[in-house]
């Protein structure tokens, strides 16, 4: 969506004075940060640390390693099914928007798809920050009413016999889809298997191995 000036910012002062070379959102956020920092409410170094966390430490590789381990170790898969929060925390992934995790397993004839129709709830601890399409109206509107059509827009055409289960994240539970292990991956170790698990496969808009 465009980030242009929406014309309803009278009184906010952007576009006047020394900031007028900045686009409106840059100016708006910069002004807020300046005021908050000046009042001692925000530590700019903390902002850098937050950004660095989601840029380099917390992302879909976390979830991919959880999935790969569940493929390798039936005992771990059982634990993930019973108590995903603990099983995922044991791999070192926990915290914000991953406090209460559930893992849902695709199987023969069953496909899981995760959405948040009311906002943008997403399992940050295992997938990082959500992509724009996950937060935007087209996906949030139609994932519940036309899941098969939505999946086709991702290039995923499921057999008519496959039952689709949509999980609308309306409370504080966060869902991780565990896709089926692709055929012919018998000899691979954890990191190689994790390479086959895309972010979209863990939301349910792709299969493992489809878009590594």
């Amino acid at each position, binding site marked *: *969506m465009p980030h242009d000036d929406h014309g309803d910012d009278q009184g906010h002062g952007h576009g006047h004075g020394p900031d007028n070379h900045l686009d409106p*959102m840059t100016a708006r*956020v910069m002004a807020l940060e300046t005021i908050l920092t000046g009042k001692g409410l925000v530590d700019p170094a903390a902002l850098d640390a937050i950004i660095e*966390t989601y840029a380099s430490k917390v992302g879909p590789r976390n979830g991919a390693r959880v999935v790969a381990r569940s493929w390798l170790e039936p005992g771990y898969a059982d634990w993930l099914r019973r108590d995903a929060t603990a099983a995922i925390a044991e791999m070192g992934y926990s915290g914000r928007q991953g406090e209460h995790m559930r893992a849902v397993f695709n199987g023969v004839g069953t496909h899981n798809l995760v959405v948040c129709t009311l906002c943008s709830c997403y399992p940050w601890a295992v997938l990082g920050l959500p992509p724009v399409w996950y937060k935007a109206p087209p996906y949030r509107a139609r994932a519940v009413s036309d899941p098969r059509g939505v999946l086709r*827009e991702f290039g995923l055409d499921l057999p008519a016999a496959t039952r689709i289960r949509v999980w609308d994240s309306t409370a504080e539970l966060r869902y991780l889809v565990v896709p089926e292990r692709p055929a012919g991956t018998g000899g691979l170790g954890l990191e190689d298997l994790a390479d086959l698990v895309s972010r979209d496969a863990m939301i349910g808009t792709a299969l493992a191995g489809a878009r590594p």
Partner: protein
Amino acid sequence: MNGPQDLGGQQGFGAVAPEADEPLFHAPWEARAMALTLACGALGAWTIDESRHARETLGWVTYYRSSYYEIWIRALETLLARHGFVASEERAAGRALRLAPEAPRVLRAEAVAGTLARGGPCDRPVAAPPRFAPGARVRTVAMNPEHHTRLPRYARDKPGVVEAVQGGFVFPDSNAHGGGERPQWVYTVVLRGEDLWGADADPGSEVSIDAWESYLEPA
């Protein structure tokens, strides 16, 4: 509330448009907006439920014209003004004009890792036993509330089956409005596509919601 955020089943937004090789942020301000939202949340002056309500009350036109981080920043401005931290005149002036109230917690850089790793668990003990057991047939309530709720319109007044009792959780309908946590049991309830969308449903599809106990009645 029946605001612009309640999107399930709405039509007319077009196809989903996944972006190939999408960057984590589309502009540097988005990264600052995300981090500011988290850092200000850590002040402890409002709950996640109040912040969700601030986003859904931005107005329909603003909500749909804004990117998600813009929604976050606009709602953050509302929250900062409501709680006396940054007045709109100060944003207009681009500088602080008065002292902010004492903030009990300011997130420092060295505390970021621990704070993010802890998150904000919102499971709570509930004294009464769960009213419903797995397998129970239920009906979601009809409601038309002006307050914050997590029962979407498409899933109101519908039959369903309890699949799991997920535990006790803070009740957003009260917590968003300063009414306290008032925890309730939360259930995963499975709704049949045909019950939601009639003949237009994908045959055999199911949608589950996570529903607080007061959203449900025995069927």
